[in-house]
């Protein structure tokens, strides 16, 4: 049959050692990713941390050099920094609270049967695909009384005394970016929680139903425990992303009015981008990083306590 063309077993067609390949192959596959991440993220990260201890300002090019903790001392007495820290807290908390609960609600709805579900799902997830700068602009316009309806509605509801732009009101301005962020972020929670919901075996609900559980009982006894790990991880990741998320605020308010919407990440960006003071920007970034690390550790410890795995 084919015996004339078939090589005898064990006559390798000139190939490097099997073992060598077996050992080396995975490294070949990950090396592009690893090199990219190391060069573009990890190395700059180390440099960035080192900047925090230097004076690196493009506007004062002759005053570069190591300055020890000078940047941090300046930070400690910087009123803007403490204000930004407080704003970061409210911005993150407000955004994550509404994103999560509205996202969970949406995921639960999408996990039921109704007519036209596919279309509805594609449409409600759409805000996530809208480029951030565009979401920011759109919401800025919606809040603008000359071309947006929102101030008029709010006034009609009696929330505002007259239709004016809340983005210009230091007391209310933060609600603008938060609204935009909630709009943009609901789909993320809905998608991940929907995926988690769909992986809960249906028999569990049937069993609960046979056991006479009410809808609320099967939600708290089956759904929530199953979602808990996913909730813990997504809430943690999202919190960190939101705390770092400067685009929306930068476009909508630029941190104003009177720094009332200045959060740490926009402060970092404006310090680096407008003032070109990289040393100080890095010091703020390091402070933010430390805060987020503390947060992550607390959450991980809590998770270990609460979720028994």
């Amino acid at each position, binding site marked *: 049959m084919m015996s004339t063309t078939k090589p005898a077993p064990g006559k390798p067609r000139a190939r490097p050692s099997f073992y060598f390949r077996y050992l080396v192959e995975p*490294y070949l596959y990950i090396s592009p990713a690893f090199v990219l991440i190391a060069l573009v993220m990890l190395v*700059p990260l180390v440099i960035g941390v080192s900047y925090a201890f230097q004076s*690196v300002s493009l506007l004062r090019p002759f005053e570069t050099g190591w300055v020890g903790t000078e940047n941090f001392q300046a930070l400690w007495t910087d009123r803007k920094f403490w204000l930004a820290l407080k704003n970061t807290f409210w911005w993150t908390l407000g955004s994550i609270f509404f994103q999560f609960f509205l996202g969970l609600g949406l995921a639960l*709805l999408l996990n039921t049967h109704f007519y036209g579900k596919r279309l509805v799902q594609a449409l409600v997830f759409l805000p996530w695909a809208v480029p951030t700068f565009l979401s920011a602009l759109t919401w800025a316009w919606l809040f603008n009384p000359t071309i947006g309806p929102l101030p008029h509605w709010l006034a009609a509801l009696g929330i505002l005394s007259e239709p004016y732009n809340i983005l210009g009101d230091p007391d209310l301005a933060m609600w603008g970016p938060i609204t935009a962020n909630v*709009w943009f972020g609901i789909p993320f929670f809905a998608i991940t929680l929907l995926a*988690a919901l769909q992986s809960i075996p249906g028999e569990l609900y049937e069993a609960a139903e046979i056991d006479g559980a009410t809808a609320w009982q099967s*939600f708290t006894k089956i759904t929530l425990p199953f979602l808990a790990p996913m909730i813990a991880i997504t809430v943690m990741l999202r919190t960190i992303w939101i705390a770092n998320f400067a685009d929306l605020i930068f476009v909508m308010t630029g941190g104003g009015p009177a720094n009332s919407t200045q959060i740490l990440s926009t402060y970092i960006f404006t310090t680096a981008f407008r003032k070109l003071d990289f040393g100080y920007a890095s010091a703020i970034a390091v402070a933010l990083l430390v805060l987020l690390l503390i947060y992550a550790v607390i959450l991980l410890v809590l998770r270990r306590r609460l979720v028994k795995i």
Partner: protein
Amino acid sequence: MSALRKSSPLAVTGKYLALAFYLTFALFPLYWLAKIAVTPDKLIFSEGTAMVPSSFTFENFRTVLIATDFLSYFKNSLIVSLGTAAITTCVAAAAGYAFSRFDFRGKRLVIALMLITQMFPLLMIIAPIYKIVAAVGLLNSLTSLIIVYTAFNVPFATFLMQSFFDGIPKDLEEAGMIDGCTRFEALRKIILPLTLPGLGATLGFIFTAAWSELLFALMLINSNDTMTFPVGLLTFVSKFSVDWGQMMAAGVLALVPSCLFFIFIQRYLVQGLTSGAVKG
């Protein structure tokens, strides 16, 4: 939750009301964007808050396409986003495959490093990146944006691809290897065709992310020739500070590619997360 449970009419009404709320909340801003884009200039303020304008025009789109640098921004963004998506997907597919199929020394370390990149503020590296990019003379070039975006997106894309590969039985490429393929041939001829939905979802996801990135583009690009969309549109804000119609028209045009991509991929995203990420 369960198809068996008899729902009361009240609950059903509540459910549809809730759905209507979500749909309105999601779509109204986009509707408003489109509405202003097709409103004739002279009606923009007089009918500024009317739900439906009394007449329509496509004049704004025409002006944006012909009289501004819009097309150049669009082209730049397309190059950057497609380039980023393509390179990221290839790099992430390779890494995701290694995570899914091999046990190797240092695997945990690499995964930990990738997780760390998801934790720290990206803005932290904006200054060093600016200096590095300036030092190698790549400021104002699309290449630098593609490289930077690719690196930013590789970790998440890798985890996504890994979950897709995890969904494909190992037996298949082993059968291929016994049938005479090298591992790489088996990957190319057997596994990749089966991962196409996953590759598509990853491509679309990265494309959307790259399409909307603003801050690094703002930092690394300041020449009009190489501006991407977000940067360009922000310059619109100052240039055309009064011409809402044109800005909105440009916005609508910017929205089209990423929304198309997203509608196409969102189903695979849920699937991919269901099969992979949840079981961890």
